[in-house]
């Protein structure tokens, strides 16, 4: 289960990684009907954040999204792969529920307990319209440590 609270404090974000070095941190892989997202980072949490950025970049130009409204939440999941899917789906649930798109995300881990958040804004006409992501799937799901840190990937349904 998760808890949530909304806030409107654009300067209170733990990091702003989503606006830097995106080409190195995230990418995509092939799937016939949908799309695979890959996130990379020095830590597991960074890789999860990068995977989220890859997902939101399917929907819009994340660099253009203003961090006007933030959402924080927590969840428990011991399985790292299922945690990736849970993380991405919680972000999707919150953004669609609020009619928003997120441009920044953050995530911390304490064992099986995860504390995450995101900031963004309601859709406005100036934002680039990409393709809606319906959900993150268990297909080609993998979370692994690499020589450069961590890599997290799964197929998202569009």
């Amino acid at each position: 289960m998760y808890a949530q609270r909304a806030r409107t404090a654009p300067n209170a974000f733990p990091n702003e990684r989503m606006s830097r070095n995106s080409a190195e941190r995230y990418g995509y892989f092939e799937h016939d009907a949908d799309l695979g997202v890959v996130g990379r980072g020095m830590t597991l949490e960074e890789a999860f954040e990068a995977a989220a950025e890859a997902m939101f970049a399917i929907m819009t130009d994340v660099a253009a999204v203003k961090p006007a409204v933030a959402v924080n939440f927590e969840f428990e999941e011991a399985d790292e792969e299922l945690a990736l899917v849970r993380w991405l789906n919680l972000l999707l649930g919150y953004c669609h529920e609020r009619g928003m798109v997120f441009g920044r995300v953050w995530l911390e881990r304490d064992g099986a307990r995860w504390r995450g958040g995101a900031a963004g804004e309601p859709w406005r006409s100036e934002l680039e319209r990409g393709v809606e992501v319906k959900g993150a799937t268990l297909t080609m799901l993998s979370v692994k440590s690499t020589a450069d840190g961590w890599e997290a990937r799964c197929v998202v349904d569009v």
Partner: protein
Amino acid sequence: MDLSRLRQIEPWCWTVPPAAEERRAEVRLFGNAELLATMDDKVLEQITNVARLPGLVGCAMTMPDAHWGYGFPIGGVAAFDPDRGGIISAGGVGFDISCGIRCLRASLEWADLAPRLKALADTLFERIPAGVGEEGSIKLAPAELDEVLRGGARWALARGYGAAEDLEFIEERGCVAGAAPEDVSLLAKKRQRGEMGTLGSGNHYLEVQVVDRIYEERTARVFGLREGQIVVSIHCGSRGLGHQIGTDYLVSLAKAAARLGIVLPDRELACAPINSPEGRQYIGAMNAAMNCAFANRQILAHLARGAFSEVVPHAALETLFDVSHNTCKAEHHAVDGERRLLYVHRKGATRAFGPGHPALPARYREVGQPVIIGGSMGTGSYILAGAAGSENRAFASASHGAGRAMSRHQALKQWHGRQLIDELAGKGILIRTRSMRGAAEEAPGAYKDVNLVAEATEQAGLARRVAFLRPKACVKG
């Protein structure tokens, strides 16, 4: 797909012999060598995995438009018996629960519409909320939404959307029994708040088409179709509510499978016995999403009618048929001479009842159910009719679309949205979209040859071609 692994058992049907130690049911792939060769090997892997699930009845099958999905292939059909340990799988339905097509026939000829096509395309684009981030004008709180989930298209009709005559021509008459709004999460209901009457994104569309060719004159007459006539097809599903139900139950069913000792060859095949608490809950939630999709398409049909009445006031739009292609439905089928209740998963496959089926509207009963194969925005679509023998061949199922031949990623590398839209305009097809990325991903060249898919569907004995529809204007999500 590596055809050397397949064995052709009929001109349009193939199988894969199991290895000596392999314990699974038979698989059948409908299509010809050309179609199967374009499919990814993953299609074969996925349908073979489906053939290992408990309680499967008969074969696990793929339709001629099959492509690589998650868990089940898209274009996958599999029936399970609840009394023999049969399962229900969220991966066998998909995230976009009850995605389907509403087809409307217009009392209008192409010659009359042609001078006003641009005005109609613009008006439809203005009135139909389409694409990521677009909301509808109907805002429903969770408690109000429960009424939608119970009532389906009937709820929409009671709210003034559409005509009473529509219901007769919607699968399940617009309201499937067994919906359980209490098994739908609050987040799913919140996601739907602004999404009633919206088209969505990706491969969803509202298309104005002209009947270009009639294949079966008598059936076309029964369907109310003639050459040169305008038809409108609306492709969308249960929107955010269905997506969230898929998300919620994918994980809970995966955990149920582990708890119940069901060995899953792929985690995405997350499933539980139909007769288990988790299975029953998912079925209740899925049925609720089906009703949501029926209501959504009913509202969109109403909005389309509004746009038509503004541009061509004398034109009437009647529902030809509305059928889903991402479902699992409880149906009775004859198996080895015995009538049995089965749960038929159709993921990217259309129900296709043949002539005489009692569930069909009286008007269509003699000729069979209208089956809609939605093609890409540049090529065309088909209306078919359920074939007499299709119940025995594929539990009365048929193709649902052209099927992707190329990934979205590849399509993005190959086409630019603006350029593609201009090229299609040069061919007389008007595209209206807010997403250039979406247009590129949906390029006609990224899909299989819809003509071949429709031909294969007919030759395989799944459904008969009735009419070919050529696109004229398309609102893309």
